[in-house]
């Protein structure tokens, strides 16, 4: 039975439960809701929750566990010898699932009866061709073990699916009966419903937190893997980034690739600093104008206009860097350019990426700073103006100092955005890892290298690919540190006016 149907049935049962629970509570109070402990709808909601919540939770868990169970049962069907050279059991199982799905599709499309699907043999039928006819493309011919495993796979998932439907609907009915029997006038339905809702809210926030933990864990394991293959000291302190193509080691067993993070960190920091040098003054001045000088009409128009910048996809900024800003800079700083210097060799440079990234960050700085400046109480401004200070003296000496911690927080948040930015760097700054002081040189950053290391054709278990996780981990720690620091400062600022 499809999962969607199970969900619909459970929800319908929940609706029925709502009605009968409410009715039973009303009946127990002789139809007068004033004799009930809680409002009638709470009794209904109580039954509804008892029907839906446990069964839905079970459904989710079942759907997570079932594939694992089936996998382990089916994979025993594939003999060790059948796993061919250059392949693995995991890859074989992926084939099995693909064939099983293909058979499902074929049955659904009417190209096969379900009888046929569970009986056919590779010896008699060309499975690949028949599945191809219903639009399921397979990479190679289906081998007998795989077909058998796939048929077993279908059989098991059909059987477990049926058991699941029965169990889930049974749980829903049991919940309904139990909650219905409790629906009496004295029953504290309201308190029960409220605590159930609280648990739902806790569940939602734990999912968010657990995801973060999951992300960190997946980074950590791969990072540890990397450091087993590549010395940590080299990673952190070697000033060269030169991954060798084939990977491999020299005669002493040292890796041929030089994977030093320093040039990448340098590129990241250099580009971020330029970006902030652009974004902070412009953003801050824009925020001061908007919050202190602009009239309501200007503000209503200009603030959303600036925030549009934040909505532009970074790839578009990247194109802007590549096609407009880069060539423009070359015209000025390149050989034979306006200044008659030849500092810049090509359009991709730290400066190009930094300028464009700075533009991208303007709304982050301006929008947050604007909110923070607005949060400075009007009484502060009145106090200063009342002492005969001009508007700009008031802003310089009272408003900005009062808003400073918050503004610093905004800048740090913008900085962590800059450090994590990828697209603009790939298109604007080039791909050369280099430790250079010249802002018109092409350089690259940690994020850009993570992408290129993982999308290259290096073996996933080689240090050349795993280094991406170490880079990602480093980046994560740096931005996490910045964010925590920013939040700490913003929070400290909030307390000031409580």
């Amino acid at each position, binding site marked *: 039975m499809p999962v969607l149907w199970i969900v619909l049935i459970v929800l319908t049962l929940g609706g029925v439960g709502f009605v009968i629970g409410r009715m039973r509570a009303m009946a127990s109070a002789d139809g007068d809701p004033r004799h009930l402990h809680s409002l009638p709808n709470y009794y209904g909601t109580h039954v509804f929750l008892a029907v839906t919540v446990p069964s839905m939770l079970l459904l989710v868990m079942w759907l997570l566990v079932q594939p694992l169970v089936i996998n382990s049962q089916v994979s025993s069907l594939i003999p060790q010898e059948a796993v061919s050279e250059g392949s693995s059991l995991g890859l074989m199982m992926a084939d099995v699932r693909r064939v099983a799905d293909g058979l499902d599709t074929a049955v659904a499309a009417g190209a096969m009866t379900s009888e046929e699907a569970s009986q056919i043999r590779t010896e008699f039928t060309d499975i690949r061709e028949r599945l191809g006819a219903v639009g399921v493309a397979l990479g190679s011919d289906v081998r007998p073990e795989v077909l058998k495993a796939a048929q077993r796979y279908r059989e098991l998932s059909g059987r477990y699916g049926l058991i699941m439907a029965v169990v889930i609907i049974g749980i829903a009915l049991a919940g309904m009966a139990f909650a219905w029997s409790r629906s009496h006038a004295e029953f504290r339905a309201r308190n029960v419903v409220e605590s159930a809702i609280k648990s739902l809210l806790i569940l939602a926030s734990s999912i968010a937190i657990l995801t973060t933990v999951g992300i960190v864990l997946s980074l950590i394991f791969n990072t540890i893997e990397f450091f087993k293959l590549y010395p940590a000291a080299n990673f952190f302190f070697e000033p060269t980034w030169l991954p060798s193509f084939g990977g491999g080691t020299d005669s002493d067993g040292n890796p041929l690739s030089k994977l030093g993070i320093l040039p990448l960190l340098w590129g990241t920091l250099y580009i971020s600093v330029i970006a902030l040098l652009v974004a902070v003054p412009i953003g801050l001045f824009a925020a001061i104008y908007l919050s202190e000088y602009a009239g309501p009409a200007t503000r209503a128009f200009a603030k959303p206009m600036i925030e549009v910048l934040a909505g532009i996809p970074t790839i578009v900024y990247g194109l802007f860097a590549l096609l407009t800003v880069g060539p423009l800079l070359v015209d000025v700083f390149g050989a034979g350019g306006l200044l008659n210097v030849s500092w810049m060799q090509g359009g991709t440079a730290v400066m190009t990426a930094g300028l464009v990234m700075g533009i991208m960050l303007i709304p982050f700085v301006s929008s947050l700073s604007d909110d923070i400046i607005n949060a400075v109480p009007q009484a502060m*401004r009145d*106090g*200063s*103006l*009342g002492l*005969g200070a001009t508007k700009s003296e008031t802003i310089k000496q009272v408003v900005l100092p009062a808003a400073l911690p918050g503004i610093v927080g905004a800048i740090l948040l913008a900085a962590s955005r800059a450090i994590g930015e990828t697209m603009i760097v790939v298109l604007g700054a080039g791909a050369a890892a280099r430790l250079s002081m010249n802002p018109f040189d092409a350089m690259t950053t940690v994020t850009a290298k993570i992408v290129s290391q993982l999308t290259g054709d290096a073996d996933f278990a080689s240090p050349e690919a795993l280094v991406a996780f170490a880079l990602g981990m480093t980046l994560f720690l740096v931005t996490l540190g910045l964010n925590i620091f920013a939040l700490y400062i913003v929070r400290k600022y909030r307390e000031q006016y409580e």
Partner: protein
Amino acid sequence: MNDMRIVERKVDANEVKISARTCQVYYGDTHAIKDVDVDIQDKTVTAFIGPSGCGKSTFLRCLNRMNDTIDICRVEGDIHLDGEDIYDPKVDPVQLRAKVGMVFQKPNPFPKSIYDNIAYGPRIHGLAKTKADLDEIVEKSLRRGAIWDEVKDRLHAPGTGLSGGQQQRLCIARAIATEPEVLLMDEPCSALDPIATAQVEELIDELRARYSVVIVTHSMQQAARVSQKTAFFHLGNLVEFGETGQIFTNPQDPRTESYITGRIG
């Protein structure tokens, strides 16, 4: 009204400091102050009383042009300070506000040190040539604000860390530091407890020796305790203006009488 203690005080000088004639204030289309004529004397405490929303604060803010900071606010009529029209285009409102200081309803010390709070005005107006001058101004202002003894050991602690009553006296001292001629106070005690209120009231009485003080208050007892002149506002009109004792004992207008006997809230 039995605890009302009306003190007949001699008004020291009869010189007019501020005079307003046919003053009108509009917030957009709302006519908030209607045709107000009033003379505020030097070295006198003048109280503005009246039900809330009657325009006391609005009128007070006309006297140092703080209403200029509200976009929709429009002031008409004549207001003269020492015979000079303060709404004349030649007058710089910033300079005017140095002469006509203001203390607000809620204490609003800047998030700076006590010292920097007081030094703020003198620094902006260049009143001190040297650090020693500035120290002296700060000390003098804090003394006149009757808070010196409480803060002299922690001048560099933040002003926001003081108690409410101390903060308000700090704000008064801050206003005094720019050597104003007139001090406007908008319900300066409404956020304070009775003890702090008594301290501030005592301070106001001392300030009368040097400044012309205008105080808005919602407490008639307070008006009776600290002021020599009282103006009663109602719905944007100045209903009655005269000696405090007379307003409270022998009001001429029936609206004043209803208000002080508690019939208009």
